[in-house]
């Protein structure tokens, strides 16, 4: 991996040979082929481009991205940022991107937790536990995702109407309009507290690192947790108290047709999230199982022989080795989950595909619309890949 592994014999560059203008010269042949291939591809792209532009002109189809600043007029049920149909297409598309991220990010976290749990369950020595996990994996992996999404959406629609909604706990309502919960009235002090908690996490991490460095130096273990708790919990609470401790709860209540107030999880979002998480978890479970099995039994036995407890064996010996096998296929699963979220169209969750489709339908600019969808997915997918590759490189076996 590093320079040290390179054989010193290959460090020296081969002697330069003058170019001979002949077919027999390997380098000339290489150049000719490359020019040819680039030329052919270039002309195909040029032909496609000019043909498209010509056709659009002939049919008087508008082109360009000017439509982004026009009023969208399309209603969107769920938005993380303020949105009104009078806003522009650009803002509507931004809402769509955020909706995609909302389901992808939460989905990746939940699928990882569920998938890892099931993967470990399948390795359990308990017959029932391992068979249940095996059954889950085999069933979930074998059914098409679209079918599962439609199934979950139908289940959601089977819930009672808002006026007969289930009310298991005070202030929590479950109906075919979604899950309604009491919510904190968000104010500036809360944002400040969240930021303080983020700062606390960073500080706690830095403190932990320096404590570990000291332990390495003098062998004395140090207690980290009191300072960490103070930083991660104490700091935000202090900030919140300093800003006047606002605490107003908004309770959902049935008014007219629907619930008002509180926070809600829509049936569309819930169906999509549950479908994506349970489906992807089936694949992640197998990845985790394979990763753990890839660690030689000798490693387990050696660790146990050292007297480590089973939790420590998993955390210190097995997982660091298993992760090297797990991370690359895990990246694929994260990418799949993100891309599969475009199936949201079928169950009416307004993600980027749904909103861009509507946009291209209303403006008639299909090429631009599809280009936007592609750019969004490419950006999200590349970001996931970059992050996972960085993480993979970090945990990779350091060879010397």
């Amino acid at each position: 991996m590093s320079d040290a592994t390179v054989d010193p014999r290959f460090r020296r560059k081969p002697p330069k040979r003058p170019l001979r203008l002949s077919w027999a010269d390997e380098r000339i042949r290489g150049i000719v082929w490359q020019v040819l291939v680039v030329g052919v591809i270039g002309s195909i792209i040029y032909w496609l481009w000019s043909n498209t532009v010509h056709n659009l002109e002939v049919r008087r189809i508008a082109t360009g991205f000017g439509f982004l600043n026009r009023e969208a007029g399309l209603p969107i049920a769920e938005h993380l940022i303020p949105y009104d149909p009078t806003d522009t297409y650009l803002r509507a598309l931004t809402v769509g991107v955020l909706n995609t991220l909302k389901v992808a990010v939460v989905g990746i976290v939940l699928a990882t937790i569920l998938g890892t749990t099931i993967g470990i369950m399948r390795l359990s020595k308990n017959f029932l536990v391992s068979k249940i996990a095996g059954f889950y994996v085999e069933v979930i992996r074998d059914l098409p995702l679209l079918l599962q999404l439609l199934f979950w959406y139908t289940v959601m629609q089977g819930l009672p109407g808002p006026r007969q909604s289930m009310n298991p706990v005070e202030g929590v309502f479950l109906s075919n309009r979604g899950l309604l919960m009491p919510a904190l009235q968000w104010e500036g002090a809360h944002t400040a507290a969240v930021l303080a908690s983020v700062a606390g996490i960073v500080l706690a991490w830095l403190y932990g690192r320096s404590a570990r460095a000291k332990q390495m130096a003098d062998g004395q273990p140090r207690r980290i947790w009191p300072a960490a708790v103070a930083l991660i919990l104490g700091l935000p609470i202090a900030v919140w108290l300093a800003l006047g401790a606002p605490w107003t709860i908004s309770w959902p209540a049935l008014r007219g047709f629907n619930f008002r107030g509180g926070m809600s999880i829509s049936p569309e979002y819930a169906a999509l999230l549950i479908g994506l998480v349970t489906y992807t978890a089936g694949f992640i479970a197998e990845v985790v199982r394979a990763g753990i099995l890839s660690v030689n039994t000798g490693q387990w036995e050696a660790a146990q022989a050292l007297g480590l407890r089973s939790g420590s064996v998993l955390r210190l010996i097995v997982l660091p080795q298993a992760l090297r096998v797990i991370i690359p296929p895990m990246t694929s699963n994260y990418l799949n989950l993100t891309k599969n979220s475009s199936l949201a169209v079928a169950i009416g969750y307004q993600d980027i595909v749904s909103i861009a489709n509507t946009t291209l339908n209303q403006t008639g600019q299909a090429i631009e619309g599809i280009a936007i969808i592609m750019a969004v997915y490419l950006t999200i997918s590349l970001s996931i890949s970059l992050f996972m590759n960085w993480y993979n490189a970090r945990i990779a076996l350091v060879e010397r």
Partner: protein
Amino acid sequence: MVQFSRHSVFRMIGGALLASAMALPAAAQQAGSATLDAIRARGTLICGVNAGLAGFAQPDSQGVWRGFDVDYCRAVAVALFNDASKVRYVPTTAQNRFTALQSGEVDMLSRNTTLTLSRDTSLGFDFPAISFYDGQGFMVKTSLGVRTARELDGATICVQPGTTTEQNLTDWSRANRVRFTPVVIERLEDLVNAFVAGRCDAFTTDVSGLAATRAVQARPADYTILPDVISKEPLGPLVRHGDQRFSDLVRWIHFGLVAAEEFGITAANVQEAAASDARPEVQRMLGKNGDLGRMLGVDNVWLVNVLRATGNYGEMFDRSLTPIGIQRGPNALWTTPGGLQYAPPFR
């Protein structure tokens, strides 16, 4: 790290380029009657229809497409080939219909599509005729006890994306200060299922579509169509802009159907009328005199063939739309009070 061989990378790129090239076939790009030439060479008309809307376009139990919009496809096929079966139907959704026509995947759309200025211009289409005058309305469950659309403040409303319906709804809600939560599902069947399951309080689309949906429910009386009509929805077939010959043909087929009703010519009596009707305009229409058919680029007895296959406008309406409870209303002939269907002279 996966390494692709150079060969396979190039093949992938090439495949992608070819796929995008095929979306815009060169055959459909010239002005003139490229569409007609392509249809004649192929021997069938490819007609984009609704994927399933009772009365307008729906396959029957034998898988044969039937309905008011389908009859327009059949009429065009008869005018060209004198054979109503020479049509391939392509079911389209509200969202993919325009791309299908733009890309040349279908020759024409006959699919409850509203004529608007932007669709006529920047989308690159022509609307040859208005086959059905419609308006947008709301349907609710009767048990909800709602009488007018104004009472829907705060309701959840089911709506199809990518339609004028969606935009009319937001315009109307803004003008009337009625707030609503949308549920936006692409496939009409899924949307109707969501409405029936109670996911939404109201379902909005063109009144004809509401009537068609209501008619196929197990208990139609459980649903009420509110009296409010919040928009004008002139529906009709549409073709690509720039192919005037084809556009003319579709336009005059519609006028022929309307004029035939006005003159009392039906599927049953058209043969007799072609032989013996003494009215000069009827003789020109049915090809006994003059060469109006040839001016359109089809057989001179085109309208006789069309009427034999589909009947006149009124017969088409009675066959497909009257059974699901749609009144003639503005779609009556101009000779009836309130009627808007009017055909220019056949001369």
